[in-house]
């Protein structure tokens, strides 16, 4: 078992190293990609700074004031950058492999196919956004600790839980992406499905309580319990920022549900992937 894990670790490190070598071959391009994703970050930060010129919080009584919302934003940035660095390039390549029949070669390799197609490439430049997230988080934590009204420093336990549940968030996003890209085995080409991915994950970018009203309730339920994208950023961000203190029991239920949802999503994605592979018929020769 341990030897097996070790083997997968070594394979992954080789993949990561190869990708880094590849990225460093086109160094200017790499720097430009980093800069452009930082530009995107700046634009978003600018947008929310403008919003907080006009309001003290997002939603009445939600507790998402400026500093805490920026912690939320940093969480979005962490999770999205990890997904973009490790899974996005692979999911894109996967549908290409199906269309061209290159999947044959992946199936023949003496290693788990899902592992192989999920981790083959690492897009290192996306980690620039991870660094940007660190800066946003550091600034807002510092401001939060030093502000005059209602200063707040997260406890060590909440930081540990935060890191664990950020990992769970990445796992949920990964599962969703695998499910979507596995459907390209059935559909052949799924450009629209990738757009769908962006539009679905768009819901995860804001505090979930804003959907829990009026005609948003069905959406809130659907994206919490069926496709749990609302949990991805919300649960870890709430653990760290604690917008409402003391925490309500409902919040702990949500944390527990996210732990369950992570396991369920990963298992579902595994099942969808295997079922889809069974209907794969090689293309071309």
């Amino acid at each position, binding site marked *: 078992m341990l030897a097996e894990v070790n083997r997968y670790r070594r394979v992954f490190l080789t993949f990561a190293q190869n990708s880094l070598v590849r990225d460093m071959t086109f160094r200017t391009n790499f720097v430009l990609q980093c800069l452009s994703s930082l530009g*995107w970050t700046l*634009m978003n930060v600018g947008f929310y700074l403008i919003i907080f010129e006009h309001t*003290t919080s997002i*939603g*009445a*009584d939600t507790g998402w004031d400026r500093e805490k919302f920026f912690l939320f934003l940093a969480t979005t940035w962490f999770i999205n950058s990890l997904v973009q660095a490790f899974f996005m390039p692979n999911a894109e390549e996967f549908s290409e492999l199906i269309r061209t029949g290159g999947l044959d070669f992946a199936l023949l390799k003496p290693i788990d196919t899902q592992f192989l197609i999920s981790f083959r490439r690492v897009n290192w430049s996306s980690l620039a956004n991870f660094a940007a997230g660190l800066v946003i988080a550091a600034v807002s934590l510092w401001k939060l600790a030093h502000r005059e009204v209602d200063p707040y420093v997260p406890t060590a336990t909440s930081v540990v839980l935060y890191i664990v549940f950020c990992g769970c968030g990445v796992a949920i996003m990964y599962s969703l992406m695998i499910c979507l890209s596995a459907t390209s085995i059935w559909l052949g080409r799924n450009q*629209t499905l990738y757009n769908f991915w962006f539009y679905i994950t768009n819901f995860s970018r804001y505090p979930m309580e804003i959907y829990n009203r009026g005609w948003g309730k069905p959406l809130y339920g659907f994206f919490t319990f069926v496709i749990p994208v609302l949990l991805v950023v919300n649960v870890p961000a709430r653990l760290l920022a604690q917008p409402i203190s003391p925490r309500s029991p409902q919040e702990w239920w949500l944390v527990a549900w996210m732990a369950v949802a992570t396991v369920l999503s990963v298992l579902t994605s595994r099942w969808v992937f295997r079922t889809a592979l069974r209907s794969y018929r090689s293309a071309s020769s």
Partner: protein
Amino acid sequence: MSTTSYSRPHLEPIGWMGRMRTWSMIFNTAFSERLAYRGDFALGTLMRFLPIITQIFLWWAIFDSIKHNGVVNPGDSTGDASEPVRIGGYGFREMVAYYLMTMIARAFSSMPNLASGIALQIREGEIKRYLIQPIDLIGFLLINRIAHKVAYYAVAVAPFALVFYLCRDYFVDGFPPLHQFLAFLASLVMGFLIGFFLEASIGMIGFWFLEVSSLLFLYMLFSFFLSGHMFPLTLLPDWIEPFVSFLPLKYLAYFPAAVFLGKIPADELPMEMAIQAAWLVFFMVVCRVAYARGVARYSGYGG
């Protein structure tokens, strides 16, 4: 300079009738090419409205908390009973209507792959075709683009109508008066042309630098933020707003939406329209000059 010397001799003998025939042929080809993927199209258009849902809930929450906690920015309070809070002149429902209208404006002014396509043609040497054949590159691309847009509207009108019908209550003032609506239409058409000539000019940079993709990304970033696609430009802090409203980018999204919603005062409207027209002429000239200069220094790469 060199465009004239290259293409004029070929164009002259054809005459107006011939030229119209060429143009309508280009249009028809591009039009039917586009309609081939209409199913994908309609679905894609409907999905493009999904982010609006997030925007509705975001602004709903923001306006709610302002009503609840009081205004932070003294200018946001109106004293109006029906719309007590306005951010940058927009109440909650107008804000949603604004995002919906920018979708229309972007449907006119966005030019996917135009600049990168031109740069690619320059890099791969395909541009030689336009130097030899009796067809003007810019005219050809423009007709192509019009055909694509017309095909797009023909398919997208159904999803657009559906979404606007569902969201009709967000339009507080109802349908604008006729003159305002005509100004809106004119600003849309000019927005389309500004978008076209602006992006074509950026593509022409390919004559000088072989790789323009990073430059393009920078432009897209700025245009997303400063065209008003992300939020109404009146929300910008007072010290930035004058600079941004001087830029031509606002005509790509903000301006048509603001005209439709009656956010441009009636006495300023003619002047604003004139400025938009001036920007259009400016970019037409820039694009022509850049093309002529570019062709003059062009040496055919590739086979």
